[in-house]
């Protein structure tokens, strides 16, 4: 289909309305308003800033724990505490080590997990509120539109804009009655703020050398929001756990946060760098809830909402070069996250603000080259982002040999200014850690998979139901498997098709068709976590955005 696309031109195009993208839009608007008020030339307009968001509504694809360090937001909106979109300030915080039956409280809360002065928040609510502020400034914010394709500069490296998703295509890619081709949005500066493993950021990485010293590594965060009987948990109570049910060889841990109105946020973040390809992160989280330490909080309560999202954990050495001609990468897409503190919202916001300052200068001087936009990296270097990330630059890598080695490295890092046992410590992409199974070409029996009791624990389909996920059913599959024969021939023998296990939304299934294994993709279950794109051992799954508006509904998450 080569329908002519409508073209629009903007000064700045931001892909993704999360904390980073919205902070960039808001801060840039503020700078432009001040600039215009002062009478300075050239006059700039906030109407020439476009923000694309693939979710049905603002905040609907936003998922985090979350305990937020307010530092970033305080710089962006100094009086934010007057109109709090938040949930509650952190009251009591503690860290625990779990064994199968017991919980051991760490005698002191490890300093990185101290949360005094921080807030337990719903990042979805925060985003909705922030988006409201952005819309008031005159910025064009389009929900239900995804950035589907980058427009590259014909010469040199760099970005000229984005093509939005085609709407109204059927399963086979044929136009339906409501077919509308995606728009061709050209911008002086395109900002990729797509969250972890952005699909456009991936396109850019395939074309330009932007990868950092290490590849990015990710954890999968799985979360449930519960409503529990009154008095079960204090608002602002924050607990982090290590240990059971994860083996010490697997990176990860759990969280339990008390929210207002008897709500509880709980979940696990599990490193997508485990060895057993048949490991099921969703099942691990379900079993986590059966621990007495967790179960006694949830007993008699009910599941309100479910979600899953990946988290960039690699730290400073995994961050890509965040600038090209006409383009910047911010937030989780660039790995602005402190994995030792388990916090990224404050840094996402700050990265958005620094990008806004960079763009503001570039627009005024009419220079959007990589050379001019490199100022973004300098601003990051001079800001508290570097101060916070540099001392923990080898934190995550230390856990490659398991929990105990990681904790020892963390201790050494603390007294060595971040060096740890080796600096820079290298790492490889998580999928390279899988152990090969070398089985017969037989499907792994799925009938014994975890089903849950339907009260405290659930199977994946039930959880997906609670994510509020909805897609137009008659559209091209947005999980593009580049070489399907690998699934049925090689993967089945070498790894037992781990997609059936790592996906927390039961999207992937191996079925028998005419006595041969075949991959079946239930794309409409997809909660947009990007795990498949990251954790597939052959890297043949390409997550592309489905028709805009589709996906989970993380209201209140």
């Amino acid at each position, binding site marked *: 289909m080569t329908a002519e696309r*409508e073209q629009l031109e903007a000064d700045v195009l931001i892909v993704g309305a999360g904390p980073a993208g919205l902070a960039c839009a808001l801060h840039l608007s503020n700078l432009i308003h001040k600039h215009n008020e002062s009478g300075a030339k050239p006059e700039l307009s906030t109407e020439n800033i476009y923000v694309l968001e693939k979710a049905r509504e603002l905040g609907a694809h936003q998922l985090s724990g979350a305990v937020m360090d307010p530092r970033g937001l305080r710089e962006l909106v100094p009086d934010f505490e007057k109109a709090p979109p938040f949930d509650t300030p952190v009251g009591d915080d503690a860290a625990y080590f779990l064994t199968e039956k017991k919980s051991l409280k760490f005698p002191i809360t490890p300093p990185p997990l101290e949360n005094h002065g921080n807030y337990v928040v719903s990042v979805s609510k925060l985003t909705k509120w922030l988006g409201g502020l952005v819309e008031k400034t005159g910025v064009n914010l389009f929900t239900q539109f995804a950035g589907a394709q980058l427009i590259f500069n014909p010469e040199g490296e760099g970005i000229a804009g984005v093509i939005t998703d085609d709407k109204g295509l059927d399963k086979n890619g044929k136009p339906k009655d409501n077919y509308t081709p995606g728009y061709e949005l050209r911008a002086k500066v395109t900002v990729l703020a797509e969250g972890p493993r952005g699909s456009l950021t991936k396109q850019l990485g395939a074309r330009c050398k932007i990868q950092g010293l290490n590849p990015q590594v990710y954890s999968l965060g799985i979360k449930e929001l519960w409503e529990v009987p009154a008095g079960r948990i204090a608002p602002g109570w924050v607990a982090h756990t290590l240990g059971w049910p994860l083996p010490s060889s697997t990176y990860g841990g759990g969280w339990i946060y008390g929210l207002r109105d008897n709500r509880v946020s709980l979940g696990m973040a599990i490193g997508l760098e485990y060895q057993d390809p048949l490991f099921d992160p969703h099942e691990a989280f379900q079993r986590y809830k059966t621990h007495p330490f967790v179960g006694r909080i949830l007993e008699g309560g009910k599941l309100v909402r479910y979600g899953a999202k990946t988290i960039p954990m690699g730290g400073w050495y995994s961050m890509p070069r965040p600038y090209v001609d006409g383009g910047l990468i911010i937030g989780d897409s660039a790995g602005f996250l402190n994995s030792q503190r388990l916090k990224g919202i404050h840094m996402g916001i700050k990265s958005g603000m620094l990008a806004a300052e960079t763009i503001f200068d570039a627009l005024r001087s009419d220079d959007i080259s990589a050379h001019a936009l490199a100022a973004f990296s300098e601003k990051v270097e001079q800001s508290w982002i570097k101060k916070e990330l540099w001392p923990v630059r080898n934190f995550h890598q230390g856990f490659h040999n398991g929990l105990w080695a990681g904790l020892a490295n963390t201790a050494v890092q603390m007294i060595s200014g971040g060096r740890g046992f080796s600096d820079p410590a290298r790492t490889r992409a998580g999928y390279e850690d899988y152990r090969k199974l070398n089985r017969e070409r037989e499907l792994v029996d799925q009938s014994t998979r975890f089903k849950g009791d*339907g009260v405290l624990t659930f199977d994946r389909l039930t959880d997906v139901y609670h994510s509020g996920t909805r897609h137009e059913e008659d559209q091209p599959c947005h999980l593009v498997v580049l070489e399907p024969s690998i699934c049925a021939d090689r993967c089945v023998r070498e790894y037992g098709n781990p997609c059936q296990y790592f996906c927390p939304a039961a999207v992937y299934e191996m079925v028998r068709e005419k006595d041969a294994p075949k991959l079946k993709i239930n794309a*409409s279950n997809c909660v947009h976590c990007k795990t498949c794109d990251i954790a597939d051992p052959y890297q043949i799954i390409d997550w592309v955005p489905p028709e805009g508006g589709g996906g989970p509904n993380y209201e209140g998450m």
Partner: protein
Amino acid sequence: MKILLITEQRDAKWNKTSFETLAAAQQIAKDTGGALSGIVIGNGVAALADDLAGKDLAEVLLVEHDLLGAYTPDGFSLALAQVIQQTKPDLVLLPHTYQVRDFAPKLAASLGKGMIGDCTGYRYENGRLVFVRQMFQGKTAADVTFQGVGPWFATFQAGAFRGDHAAAHPSGKAPVKRIGVELSADKIRTKPLEMFREAKQAVDLTQAPIIVAVGRGIKAPENIAQAEKLAKLLGGELAASRPICDEGWLPMERQIGSSGQTVAPKLYLALGISGAIQHVVGMKGSRTIVAVNKDQNAPIFEIADYGIVGDIFEIMPALTEVLEKL
């Protein structure tokens, strides 16, 4: 400014959006101080031309030809291109109908001119016409103007103007002028057939008193016929859970559940359906639920009034046999 309105009719009956665009054209003519002509094109449509002449325009152009009786994109664009070359309008306005969407881009392109489609309004500013059209599913409105020399083409969205606001002729009737066009059958590549309406087998599952629904347990598309037969014998409708419709074994309108229909029949017979919550929310209001499943732990049994733990390929024929004897 010379403005030309192209109206639309079928079988000598107006497409009402013609008058909406007429209302827009009258306003533009007033704002710009222009003269408005209206075209009626077809065969045997003189009565419509007369009808249109009762409206406030300078003239009505009647374009008739044997080859314009049935709509073809070639015929219409060739004929209209000739009219435009003869009358030399600056602006050509059309209603944004399916037919216009089909031929207008071709017509504009054949004259090497641009077209602004699906406008919702216009403004006349500093001697310039600015058209407004929606973008991003109506979330924003874009101002679009023409460059270069006319004729320019623009189409108006249905409902953008009110047809009953089209003004009547102030002094009786506008003159009707016949304009001849030359067409030959060999230039018209499409051959129109009889008009027909797609016979859509509308199933309204929500009204069915009895529903026989199949799930993954049916295993293969060729087995669906068995369930269909059973549904027929019971006097009910056939339905399915998502995986069956997802595979294309049954059309999506027969899907029950959160991404399909919600039903509450007197009897719901679930064959080989495990009972995932996504399905259950679409049928849990059924008066009586009978479930057949091999897995005794299948969640469908939690909401079933009657459950059979067994193979549907044994149960279906047995039920069919009994029902056939009745």
